[in-house]
């Protein structure tokens, strides 16, 4: 029984982190229709920005986190302006954009390792993850509770933004049909830029939280990205709510999967889940 609630808790915690990655990934996919493989490195950028500000320079952690999130957002915005928007204007195919994003990912990751070394760094000071609490017979750290709550809060915030504002309407219009959106006078280039900022900022937030929970490393992006992408696809790619659902399903399956097989197989388990979905339900849980 205790194992069961611990597995569920672990699944929810992992799912909450993946959900943050999936939120930004899906938001960006919705308006640009390409797999932005550089999305993961923004988590690392957020983590390292926070690391520099709060651990090296001693800034207040909330302020450090806020600036770290903004740095990730700006980096994502910058990648869009410098690379993707140019390619989009040329009507490049989504494979070209995918390869370009792979290039952005590789370059940014290399830059992080050169600046900060490839070593593993932990963000939390004192005991890892803060004090442990007992919950439904399982153990959860304070950091992990923060992850769960901020993931849900980010989703609700993003949902409110998309439902209630003119910006949200513009985003949905572009997702439906970019040509039409442009014809009715939406500045699609600018809206897409903002979408990159918001999506990347959420990824940066995920990176900081992951850094508190375990730690940061320049190569952390690939793992987080793949989890975000898998969550998005099994949830229904381009559908932000589906992505969140997919993230929790992925977190749970992974953690139940390693109940019986060694934990090193986690990544393989998640890809098997993806492949099963692609074969039997390619449109994901929630169709776009």
């Amino acid at each position, binding site marked *: 029984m205790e194992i069961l609630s611990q597995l569920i808790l672990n699944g929810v915690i992992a799912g909450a982190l993946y959900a943050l990655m999936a939120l930004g990934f899906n938001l960006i996919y919705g308006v640009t229709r*390409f*797999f932005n493989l550089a999305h993961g490195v923004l988590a690392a950028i957020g983590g390292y920005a926070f690391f520099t500000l709060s651990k090296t320079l001693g800034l207040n952690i909330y302020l450090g986190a806020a600036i770290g999130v903004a740095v990730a957002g700006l980096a994502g915005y910058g990648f869009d302006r410098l*690379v993707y928007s*140019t*390619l989009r204007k040329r009507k*490049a*195919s*989504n*494979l*070209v*954009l*995918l*390869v*370009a994003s*792979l*290039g*952005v*990912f*590789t*370059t*940014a*990751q*290399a*830059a992080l*390792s*050169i600046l900060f070394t*490839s070593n593993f760094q932990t963000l939390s000071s004192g005991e890892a993850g803060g004090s442990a609490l007992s919950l439904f017979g399982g153990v959860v750290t304070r950091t992990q509770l923060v992850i769960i709550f901020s993931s849900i809060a980010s989703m609700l915030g993003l949902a409110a933004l998309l439902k209630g504002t003119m910006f949200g309407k513009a985003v949905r219009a572009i997702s439906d049909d970019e040509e039409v959106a442009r014809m009715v006078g939406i500045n699609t280039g600018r809206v897409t830029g903002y979408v990159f900022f918001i999506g990347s900022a959420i990824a940066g937030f995920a990176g900081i939280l992951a850094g508190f929970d375990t730690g940061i490393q320049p190569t952390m992006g*690939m793992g987080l990205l*793949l989890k975000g*992408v*898998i969550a998005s*696809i099994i949830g229904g790619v381009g559908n932000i709510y589906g992505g969140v659902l997919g993230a929790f399903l992925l977190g749970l399956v992974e953690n139940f999967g390693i109940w019986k097989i*060694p934990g*090193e*197989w986690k*990544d*393989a388990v998640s*890809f*098997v889940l*993806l*492949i099963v979905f*692609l*074969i039997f339900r390619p449109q994901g849980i929630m169709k776009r």
Partner: protein
Amino acid sequence: MDYILHLAILVIIYAILGLSLNLVVGYTGLLASGHAAFYGIGAYATAILTASLGVNFFVSMAAGIIASAGAAFLIGAVLSRFDGDYYALVSLGFNVIIYSVFLNWQGLTRGPLGIPGVPRPALFGIEFSSGVFFLALAAFFLALSFLAARFVARSSFGRVLKSIREDEKAIQVFGYNTVYFKLAIFVISAGMAAVAGSLLSSYITFVDPSSFTVMESVFILAIIIFGGLSSLKGSVVGALVLVLLPEALRFAGFPQSLAAQMRQGVYGLFLIALMLYRPQGLFGEFKL
């Protein structure tokens, strides 16, 4: 001199990888992003068979080709249902799964410790242990791979592959069951990659999982995109430039400790620049 021999052998190994991957990416238009998996299967087949079981190198290479082609057959059976960015993603996923196997099937691969003591090839009492002899052997296999790739590319089969790249539905209507063609070229390409893997493990006399990550697959992809999609000459030139360029950076005074990161940074930037300014690469006939 040894240094030059070393670089020449590396260029040859990557040229074989490039040639084989180009058949799938350049000719068939399928963005296979997991080539390192098959490279790894060839390397492990040689390491396990020669180091642990004392089998002759050339026999181990044949076994590696068969193992790799067999794995590609199973993976390709799933993969050939997809195209476009999903193909890229799922092939990358299989790279992660195979990498997990290298890392975690301790009984077979010794996990992260790797397999040391892989002997240099020997045939009829001639040992290819010196650098020059090994270079000659590697060059022989490069020539063989080049001829094989050209044979495929110039056959009617090669023309059908190109038409799949251009419009898969349209060529189906003219009577080709394209799934079989996609599967066949994937298997052929994987078999060729295993040759490169065999050469690697026998040359370095050691094999461990870190040589077969997704990043390695991205590097091979960068080689062929730089050299030119659906250009065999381009694959060889691409390997030459992308293997040698980071070495040139070392001579320009960048510290040795950052070599790996510099290499990544360079080919990341190459990918971005190519997508922006020359998506068909140096000698390419085909744009993604």
